[in-house]
């Protein structure tokens, strides 16, 4: 069953060009990355999925509910974690989450019990009795997640959920959210610009561009790029590079920086990585890493924006690798 089903949705604000034009898309179970450049219409889509949009053209169903008529029921069953820093004035974490639970219709005692539970679950511990204003960025992020979970929604909308967190916190929260999807059957829409993280967490992605849908793709469809390796090495590079060129091994990208000792190379898939080791041995280059590269979400995303849908056997596109430098471009 599609969690979100949108048919021909068009929404314009005033006389400005429409924020969404004739968007048709389906979002399925599991974790879905919602991607798109700034101004692609993501925020309008968020409003629609949250049952906030009163008038638009087309049809939209969220959790099987009509996004125009059942707006309040949708909001009861969807949780939202905004991108911006948000908290409640002059309240402790526990009171704020309890209050927001009450706004969802939960009776006081249930809301309080539930607030304790979700705040503990997101790892706020003793801090729940402290004023939210005293929270660090990471704690506020957890608080925002807790408030989105308090009413046990079926669908969670997370807008840049890891913004402002340090690497350890990102890792923790990412796992926690992934677990919500895996073990507790929550459907999650994850809107973010940080594609490596989306790639880690999402099952599929939905791409918007300039108010239009560019389709929904399952991440499993992205195949490894045969014969493409990422290599790292110590030693002189010009000779080595010449040798690679001579063997028809193309250097697709070099890691920026002065010595350029981390490259992405492509060679005949039949041969495996053996020629690289051979040439390295001949030129006194010490290989530190030789690793097949799979296509990153970033590459795929760039290609979708460029207008080509990803294919299972995708061609290597030079211009879309993210370690490009001026000389290679």
């Amino acid at each position, binding site marked *: 069953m599609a969690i979100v089903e949108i048919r021909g949705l068009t929404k314009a604000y005033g006389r400005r060009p429409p924020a969404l034009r004739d968007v048709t898309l389906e979002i399925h179970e599991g974790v879905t990355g919602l991607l798109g450049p700034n101004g692609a219409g993501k925020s309008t889509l968020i*409003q629609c999925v949250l049952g*906030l949009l009163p008038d638009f053209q087309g049809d939209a169903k969220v959790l099987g509910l009509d996004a125009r008529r059942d707006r309040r029921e949708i*909001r009861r069953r969807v949780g939202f974690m905004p991108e*911006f820093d948000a908290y409640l004035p002059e309240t402790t974490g526990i009171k704020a989450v309890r209050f927001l639970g*009450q706004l969802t219709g939960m009776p006081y005692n*249930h809301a309080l019990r539930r607030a304790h539970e979700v705040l503990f679950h997101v790892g706020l511990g003793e801090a729940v009795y402290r004023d939210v204003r005293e929270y660090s960025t990471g704690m506020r992020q957890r608080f925002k997640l807790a408030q989105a979970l308090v009413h*046990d929604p079926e669908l969670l909308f997370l807008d840049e959920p890891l913004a402002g967190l340090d690497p350890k916190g990102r890792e923790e929260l990412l796992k926690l959210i992934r*677990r919500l999807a895996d073990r507790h059957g929550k459907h999650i829409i994850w809107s973010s610009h940080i594609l490596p993280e989306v790639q880690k967490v999402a099952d599929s992605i939905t791409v918007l561009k300039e108010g239009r849908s560019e389709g929904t793709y399952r991440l499993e469809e992205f195949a490894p790029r045969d014969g493409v390796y990422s290599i790292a090495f110590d030693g002189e590079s010009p000779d080595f590079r010449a040798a690679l060129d001579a063997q028809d091994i193309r250097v697709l990208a070099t890691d920026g920086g002065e010595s350029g000792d981390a490259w992405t190379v492509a060679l005949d898939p039949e041969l495996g990585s053996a020629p690289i080791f051979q040439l390295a041995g001949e030129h006194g280059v010490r290989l530190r890493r030789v690793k097949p590269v799979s296509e990153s979400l970033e590459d795929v995303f760039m290609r979708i924006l460029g207008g080509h849908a990803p294919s299972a056997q995708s061609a290597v596109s030079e211009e879309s690798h993210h370690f490009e430098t001026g000389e290679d471009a």
Partner: protein
Amino acid sequence: MAVYARGYRPYEGSFGGRSPVMAIFGQGFRNAIRTRSFKILGVLVLIFYVIFTIQMYVMLNIEEVVSEGFSRFANRNEPFDFATYTTRYLKQALMGFYGFVATVGALISMLAGAGIVADDLRTRALPLYLVRPIRPIEYVLGKALVLPAVLAIVLLSPGLTFYLFAGLWQPDGTTNEWLGNNVDILGNVIHSYLVASFGFTGLMLFLSARTPRRGTVMAIAAAVYFGGAMMAGLGSELRGVAQQALKHVSLIVNSVSAHVMAEAETDRWRNEAQMERFREEAPSPTIGMVVAIAVLLIGAYAVYRRARSTEVSE
């Protein structure tokens, strides 16, 4: 022996809790009465209240004082009894009390109410509300109830108890009769409270919904309250249309106008001409109420426009 499910658990309780209006109201009310300014000003009102109660007890129960009061409050050549004495005394006391306490009420609404919507804007809590199943109007109602409830403590309850005390301190068996004959005093107390709470609430809602900064809200509210009082004072000294318009611009003065009018009618003005002139200069309670309701509607609409926003991302 059992190992139960750890980590996240689904919620199995109901969603049939109280209306969100009550939750929003409760939250706002608690935040408002917890502010230091409310506590300090509340104690001030309490002190004032105790003083007035003691004075009233003395004026109505100590015989020498009562007889002296008779000569002060009675007009010549009119039949005068204890019930009329009480009425006149109470009307004057109410005017004195509210003349001061209405200003304190304005201060309370200004200090404790500045953040009522502004805080939600500043902390961006508003989007957190809006993505929940509440209607914009429920948010407006919840917020609009807060200040009237706070003001009921300082503006309504003292007047009601004064009225009751005056009735209770009547000679045996005449309490109900006095209370029945003086329902207009009760009406004045309620009128005064309604004008104050409508006007103050409307102003604070309006300002608070316009800017996320409490400081700005307080500064503008202070300017409106005290500037309005100055203008109304100035207006009452002018003549013609300017006078009629300007004398109603103060929310504080309007709120006590019912008491002022009641007191003036007791014994201050000995002849009809003077009374006529007074009516011209003092704000009219009816128009005061109209102004207060208009301000409340404007304020509520400003909040409604905020609550109708669907912006939940940047």
